[in-house]
Each structure stands twice: as structure tokens, then as C-alpha cells.
């Protein structure tokens, strides 16, 4: 093979002198695939599992997703080949040798990158083939394994290329091997670390901030190929979104072009210098210094008890001096030049101050944001405790849910309530007691409640905010939302699922008795399960504020979502599956259907099984504790008990703060259950 760019002979000669790299990678894959596969099959086949499950497990094994050996090989291989491919650029002797040869630099680059890819692809595919043979020998090989494992191979390859090219980029930008390795770490993690710092600042300085709300968070995270590799990895679903492929391929192409361009521009004399491109080197120094200063400022701000601004300034100055000194020593290679280019340190400190100042003073009006009703297209409101730790993924919105969100946005009463919520939101202040919430008059509020709002604006942009309010002030108006069918459609994804999807997408239903410590699968046929779900969601839609205020949930449904057929994304499945679906005593049809399946949901504990109830009251300055063993008093308390963590839309047990530890004796065994008690339903403690 002889082309203008690739030359088989040159490839072979180059590979001969780097032979340890492909050998090492081959060995790694050999241990990770056929050998580990044999061991894995030995383990799972002796457990008496169904053949279908074994095939599925082995297919997953071959896919090598999650924190698997294949993933580790991909990461390690990319770093190893990346460093190996271009580390010679850091040695003057080697650079002179290669650049004196009669070969154009682009040819040298392309041949080296080609080998870098081949070192991964060939060992991977050969060992995958061997792993198929292992599957055949064990009689579990199926054609679908090939399709799925090759699909995930493409995913691994995409991110291998991305990480490999980032390491190559670091090698090209630097002139010393150690700096090249450090540069790889910086390029791989700068974005996520910056995002973490910005989010930390938002959490510290904004009262209404919700995790991951910044539009640039995804971009900053995406700047790290390693984070992106794990984020988009098809852990539980075979489907990889088209945009991941699109963005991934574009990123690889852009990195390849950038590396190619930089390699052509890189002077041979850069070998041995700290940075190969002095101008770029100063830019990288500036960006690094700003990051360290931000981190140092926030570290000193947060470790002190009272979130002191003075300590923050100290952290900024210290971070500036340290980071600048270290970078200068690295760049200049001379400890005496530790304070050279002080203008750079000044610029970095000023930049960091501007960033922190913009958060501290909220100069972009993050907390003050509240759109006019005519600007609103959709609205979603829910309890912050129900939140999954971030924004609800757009993938979880179907047309019916969006329609309900649009109706909610147009409801003047809801908008008016929201306006009041915004006006009366509490301020978070760090004190010696930790974070406390204070109202407009500066009074400390104990019974706080987070109202999480997603504003869908006319332009297509969404904004998420959480407002902490005095629950007693807004309880009735928030609970009134349960009278709105649209509100329920928004917070219960089950209610907006198409009937066909109930059978196709919901794989199983688990029913848990809150008081009875029983959890079992709904054992009926598919049709019976669909009928049951339709009945349940019918009663869910009938539920109103009276139900949630006067009744206590007695059971809960956990839905297992089938997303492996690729019809649903992981995020969508997560939102549907993680939403708690409570069964109230008034859900008579649901309870009757469960009874036909021999599932009983007791409304409370059997009084005779309770040995004691210990009450803890955390409100007030001192914790109060009382142990109750008297049978009459126990029976009086029973109707008030709610299982701990029972969280239903805008109601959360965390609002009540009265804890009850119940010691039960069942069938000769002791068991302890933790419940909470609504303060307004609690009999006078002095009676106990």
C-alpha cells in the first residue's frame, strides 16, 4: 500500500519500534474479553439462571459499558497511545531525527495517528471475536450479540479517539513530557472543574439556584471527553442518542484538524521548552490561574463558619500568588523567576474577582428573575424534595404533559400565587448553626418548604428556580394545586402515558405496603397489569387536596421501565420510574384489584405488635425525646404516623420534623420502623 499520505512500509517500520504498545493493549483486551468472559460465564451459568438472562448478561459484558474492563482499557489505551505517539516531540534529538527525514510532516502525523487508532481497534476486534468464540463454546452465542457489541464498540472507539486526540493536543502544546501529561489532565478536566466552581458560587450566593441550571453546564462538562464518555455511555439501554454521535464525530474531526494544524505549525526547536506556542502558553497560564484563584477563594469562603468575605479575599490573593508562582517556575524553569509577569497575576486576580463579584452581587439578576405571564409558555411546579437533584430532562415531556404545563402557565391564579411565592421567598444565610432561612423581616423560619419552578419561556428557553418559603404561609394554596388535573399530569408521568405504552414500556409493577413491610410484584398477566395501572391512574387523577391532607398513604407503586428496546431514553425512564406513586385508603378500586392478587395494604401497624414508640422533636433549641409503651397512647398515635421519606408532590414529610421510631415484634423478631408525624395532627406532647 502506497498512498500520498499513508505508507504501509513506514507504518510497519514505525510499529516495529513501538511494538510494546500494541502488545500491551492486546494483552489487556485479551484478559478483559475472552479470559474475563470465560470466568464470567462460569459464574453466571452455575447460578441456575435462565438462558435468556445469561445471554443478556453476556451481551452486556461484551458491550463493556459502565465501569468495565473495556472502559478502563479504552481510557488507559487512549492515554498510553496518545503519549507514545508524540512524546518524541519533547526530545530535541528525536525531533531532529524525525524532522530531518525526507517525509512531509502531515504524512508523519497521519501515519502516527493511524497507528494510534490501529493499536486500539485491532486488539479490540480480535479479542471481541475470541469472546464470541467463548460464547459459542458455552452455547449462548446469538447474532444479536454481534450487532450490539459492535454498536458499543463504535461508542468506545468514538471516545477513544476523543481522549487520544486530547492527549495528542496536550503533547503538541507542550515541550516537556511531564508538562504534556499534566496538560492532558488539564484539558480533560478544566471544563467540569470550572463548572463545579461556578455551581458552587451559584449555590453559595443565589437563593433560588437549582443544580445544573446553567445553560453552559452541559458545554463545560462536554469539554471533558472522559466525563462525556461516562455520561453518555449506554449503561442500561442500547440506544445512543443521535446527537451524541453527531457532536462526538464533530468533536473528533475538530480535534484532529486542530492537532494537524498545530503539528504543522509547531517548530522543531520547541522540544525541551515548557510550551511549544508561547502565546498559547500564556493564555493557558491565565486560564489556569483564574481557575485556581476561583477555587481558592471559594475554598476559604466556605471552610469558615460565617462565610467570611475577608477569608475569601485572602484565598483569592493566596491562590493568585501560588498559581502564578508555580506556573512561572514551570514556564521559565527558574525559581528566581517566580514573580515574573506580575501583570498576568493581576489580570487573573481581577478576572476571578469579577466572576466572584458577579455572583456575589447577582449582577445578572438571577434571583430576581420572574417572567411576565405573557412571556410564559409552560410552567411546572413541584416540591423541591421530589427533585432528582437537577432539572427534569426534556426527554421526559410528552405532548400531553406539555399541554398541561401550557395550561398551568396560563392560569392567572397559579401565576398570582407564584408571584407571592417569589415575593415572600426566604433568604439563605450561613450562620454558626449552618445554613438558616430568614424571612423579609430577618426572622428565622423553621418550617421551610422548597417550591421548584420550571419556567418555559416563549423563545424556547427554560429557567429553573427553587423558592424556599414559610410552609405555613403557603400550604393551603400549594395543596390546592392537587385539584387541578393539569398539575397532576405534570407531576405524575404515568398519567400522561399512552395506553399502548403502559404494556410496552412498563415491565413490572412492585407494590410496597408502607406499614406492613411487604413488597411484592404485581403477579397478574400483562392485561391485568395494564388494567390495574389504568385503574390506579384514574383514581390518581381523582385525588384532590382533601385526599393528600386528610389521608395517609398506605402503599406505594414502583414501576420498572423497559428502556432496553431503545424506545425510551434513560432520562425519560428515570423520571417515570423514580416518581413515587402513593396509594391512599380512598383508592378503593385500586385496593380491590390488589386484593384479587392477594396484596393487602394495612392502614396502620397492628397495635399489639408495637412494643414501643420513641418520639423525637427536633424543633426548638433542644431535642425532645419520649418513649411510649402504654398501649392506649400508642393506639392514639397510630393514625398520625406517616412512613419516613413519604414524599408526594408538594407534600413532604421533611416539613414536619417530628420523628417516631417504632419498635415492632413480628413472628418473634424485632423490627424498627421510622415514621414521622404531622405536627398539626400530633396530640399534645405533654399528654405523653
Amino acid at each position, binding site marked *: 500500500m502506497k498512498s500520498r499520505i499513508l505508507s504501509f512500509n513506514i507504518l510497519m517500520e514505525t510499529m516495529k519500534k513501538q511494538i510494546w504498545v500494541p502488545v500491551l493493549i492486546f494483552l489487556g483486551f485479551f484478559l478483559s474479553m475472552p479470559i474475563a468472559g470465560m470466568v464470567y460465564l462460569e459464574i453466571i451459568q452455575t447460578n441456575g439462571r435462565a438462558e435468556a438472562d445469561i445471554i443478556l448478561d453476556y451481551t452486556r459484558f461484551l458491550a463493556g459499558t459502565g465501569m468495565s474492563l473495556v472502559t478502563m482499557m479504552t481510557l488507559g489505551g487512549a492515554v498510553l497511545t496518545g503519549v507514545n505517539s508524540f512524546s518524541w516531540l519533547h526530545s530535541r*534529538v528525536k525531533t531532529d531525527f524525525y524532522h530531518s527525514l525526507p517525509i512531509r510532516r502531515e504524512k508523519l502525523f497521519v501515519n502516527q495517528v493511524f497507528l494510534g487508532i490501529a493499536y486500539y481497534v485491532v486488539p479490540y476486534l480480535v479479542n471481541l471475536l475470541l469472546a464470541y468464540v467463548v460464547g459459542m463454546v458455552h452455547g449462548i452465542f446469538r447474532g444479536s450479540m454481534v450487532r450490539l457489541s459492535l454498536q458499543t464498540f463504535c461508542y468506545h472507539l468514538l471516545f477513544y479517539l476523543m481522549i487520544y486526540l486530547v492527549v495528542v493536543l496536550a503533547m503538541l502544546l507542550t515541550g516537556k513530557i511531564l508538562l504534556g501529561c499534566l496538560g492532558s489532565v488539564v484539558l480533560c478536566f478544566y471544563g467540569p472543574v470550572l463548572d463545579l466552581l461556578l455551581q458552587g458560587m451559584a449555590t453559595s450566593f443565589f437563593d433560588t439556584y437549582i443544580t445544573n441550571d446553567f445553560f453552559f453546564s452541559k458545554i463545560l462538562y462536554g469539554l471533558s471527553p472522559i466525563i462525556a464518555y461516562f455520561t453518555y455511555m449506554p449503561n442500561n439501554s442500547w440506544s445512543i442518542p443521535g446527537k451524541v454521535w453527531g457532536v462526538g464525530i464533530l468533536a473528533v474531526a475538530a480535534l484532529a484538524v486542530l492537532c494537524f494544524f498545530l503539528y504543522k505549525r509547531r517548530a522543531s*526547536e520547541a522540544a525541551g521548552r515548557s510550551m511549544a506556542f508561547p502565546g498559547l502558553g500564556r493564555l493557558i497560564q491565565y486560564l489556569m490561574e483564574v481557575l485556581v484563584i476561583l477555587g481558592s477563594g471559594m475554598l476559604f469562603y466556605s471552610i469558615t463558619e460565617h462565610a467570611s468575605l475577608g477569608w475569601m479575599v485572602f484565598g483569592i490573593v493566596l491562590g493568585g500568588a501560588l498559581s502564578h508562582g508555580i506556573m512561572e517556575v514551570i514556564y521559565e524553569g527558574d525559581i528566581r523567576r517566580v514573580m515574573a509577569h506580575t501583570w498576568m497575576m493581576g489580570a487573573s486576580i481581577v478576572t476571578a474577582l469579577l466572576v466572584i463579584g458577579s455572583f456575589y452581587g447577582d449582577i445578572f439578576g438571577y434571583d430576581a428573575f420572574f417572567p411576565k405571564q405573557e412571556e410564559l409558555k409552560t410552567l411546572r411546579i413541584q416540591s423541591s424534595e421530589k427533585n432528582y437533584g437537577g432539572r427534569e430532562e426534556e426527554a421526559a415531556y410528552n405532548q400531553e404533559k406539555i399541554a398541561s404545563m401550557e395550561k398551568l402557565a396560563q392560569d392567572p391564579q397559579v401565576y398570582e400565587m407564584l408571584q407571592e411565592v417569589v415575593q415572600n421567598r426566604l433568604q439563605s444565610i450561613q450562620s454558626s448553626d449552618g445554613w438558616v432561612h430568614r424571612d423579609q423581616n430577618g426572622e428565622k423560619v423553621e418550617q421551610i418548604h422548597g417550591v421548584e419552578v420550571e419556567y418555559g419561556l416563549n423563545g424556547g428557553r427554560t429557567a429553573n428556580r427553587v423558592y424556599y418559603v414559610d410552609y405555613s404561609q403557603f400550604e393551603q394554596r400549594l395543596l390546592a394545586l392537587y385539584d387541578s388535573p393539569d398539575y397532576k399530569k405534570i407531576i405524575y408521568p404515568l398519567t400522561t402515558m399512552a395506553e399502548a405504552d403502559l404494556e410496552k414500556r412498563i415491565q413490572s409493577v412492585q407494590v410496597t405496603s408502607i406499614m406492613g413491610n411487604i413488597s411484592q410484584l404485581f403477579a397478574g398477566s400483562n392485561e391485568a397489569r395494564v388494567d390495574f395501572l389504568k385503574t390506579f391512574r384514574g383514581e390518581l387523577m381523582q385525588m384532590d387536596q382533601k385526599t393528600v391532607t386528610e389521608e395517609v398513604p398506605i402503599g406505594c407503586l414502583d414501576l420498572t421501565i423497559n428502556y432496553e428496546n431503545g424506545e425510551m431514553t434513560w432520562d425519560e425512564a428515570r423520571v417515570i420510574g423514580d416518581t413515587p406513586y402513593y396509594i391512599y385508603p380512598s383508592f378503593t378500586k385500586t385496593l380491590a384489584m390488589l386484593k384479587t392478587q392477594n396484596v393487602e395494604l394495612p392502614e396502620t401497624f397492628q397495635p399489639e405488635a408495637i412494643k414501643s414508640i420513641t418520639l423525637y422533636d427536633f424543633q426548638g433549641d433542644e431535642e425532645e425525646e419520649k418513649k411510649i409503651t402504654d398501649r392506649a397512647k400508642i393506639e392514639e398515635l397510630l393514625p398520625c404516623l406517616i412512613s419516613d421519606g413519604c414524599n408526594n408532590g408538594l407534600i413532604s414529610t421533611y416539613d414536619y420534623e417530628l420523628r417516631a421510631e417504632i419498635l415492632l415484634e413480628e413472628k418473634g423478631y424485632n423490627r424498627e420502623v421510622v415514621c414521622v408525624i404531622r405536627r398539626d395532627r400530633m396530640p399534645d406532647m405533654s399528654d405523653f
Partner: protein
Amino acid sequence: MIQTIGVSKKFDDVQAVSSLSLEIRQGEVFGLVGTNGAGKSTLLRMLCGILKQDEGSITVDGQPVFENESTKREIFYISDDSYFFANGTPKDMQHYYQQFYPKFDTGRFYQLLERFGLKKDRKVRTFSKGMKKQLSAILGISANTKYLLCDETFDGLDPVMRQAVKGMFATEIMEREFTPVIASHNLRELEDVCENVGLLHKGGILLSENLEDMKLHLHKVQCVIPEEGQEKQLLEELEVIRCDHQGSLLMVTARGTRSEILKCIQEKNPLFCEIIPLTLEEIFISETEVAGYEVKDLIF
């Protein structure tokens, strides 16, 4: 022919080569001499396309060198610190170079290896410094290129091997189109082998001439002129580079042919007059002194 016109190269704040113009004709053995840091290695690295000049042009047979595959196929560069693959053997190196130099003469390579007593399968890392230099020279010769750029190649070679390598160069010059460019501090070695010499100083070229011409136009004279006025007149008439007195003995290094200088001295009725031939080393010292690089300043 290698031609550089107004070539400059700067490393950060250091001007390594400054507006250097030079011609190396085909078939001649060209020696590059110069003070430490004069820019000899930088010039060679630019001539073989490792470095790109900041200013000026470098052409080999009328073609630019940098990133020009076909031109570079006619140039082989032997670095002062040559690179050999880790665990590589002479055979491995030959295989590798063969991919890039299409005229690589494998037969000649093995023949020369044998002549120099180097084993083709022995790991290069076990070679002595001198053996590595020999191997580099053998690879350079076997590559069969028109131009061979040698940076301090003779350093580290014992006298026998030095003669052997010189002989190898001489054979090549006799047998084919071959132009070695040799940079060295060892001026005596260059004197034996070079026809033309380029004298580099502080990044610029002081002179580039045929060594014999250089010797013909620079002479050292020892004489005794009895009259002080005539001695003064003599020094004014000659293009004096260096002048010393030892008692009444006048020692002058001056430009000009032997006959021109002799004629001038004879007119001053000397009591004694002798012309001593200059070695390349003396020419080098004299010329660099003119350029402000005086040996006496370096002796503490």
C-alpha cells in the same frame, strides 16, 4: 548547490543566525568552522529542513528545503547527538532509513559495517560514543544522498577511525556526486579534508573561501626593520590583522599574496624576513579577532 540568502533564525531573544548568505558548490568538501554559539548547528539544521528560517531563503539545487520531500531525499543529516531507536540494531536503523531514502545502498552499508568492525545485530545502545559516530557516518554514506551534513561527526573518533571515515568520504567524492558539509571545532581535521571553509561568528559569516586561496591571501611574517619610521610605514602599507613585537622582531599577520607582502617588506630594507604559512586554526583566530573575538580576552 546549496545556497542561503540573508538567512536569519532567532530562538526567543537569542539571534542564532543573522542575515547569512552562503554558497556551497556541488562536489566540494565544505567545512563550517566557528566559535561556540556561532550558529553552525542551527545552520545545518536549517539546511536539512529541521528548522525553518525566520527570514531569507535556503535552496538546494534551486529548490527550497523545508517540507520538500524530494529535495530532502538528497540530504542526509548526521547530528552531533544522533538518535537510535531504543533496543535498535544497525540493521533496524538501515531498515528504517531505507523507507525514506530510496537510493539507500544496503550492500554498501553491510560492507562498511564489516570494514569498521561493527556488528549488524548488536544493540546500538551497547556501542561506544565513537562507534555510534561511525555508524552514523556509515548510514549517511549508504543513504547515497548528494549532500551529507555532518555536525561534529569527527569528534569522539580515534585517529585511525578518523582517517578511515575521511577515506570513506574521499572515496564517495571520487565515485559519485557527493558534497559533504562538515561542521567542527577541530580545525586541524577540517584542514586535511576541506576544500572550502565557511567561518561563522555570532550568527554571521565572516568569510567563505577556498582554503588554499585563504592561505594564499593571509600570511604571517617575521621581520626586523632597523628604522622605526620604515616599520611604521610598512604597517600602514600592509592590511594588518595582527601585529606583535618581540624585542626588535616584528610579527605581522596581514592580508595579501606572498609576493605582495614580500615586496613591501623588501622595500624597507629588513635585516631579517621570513614568511610562515598559516594553519587554519591561525586563520580562524586571526579572522575572529578582527571580528572582536580575541583569544587573549578569554585567557584569565
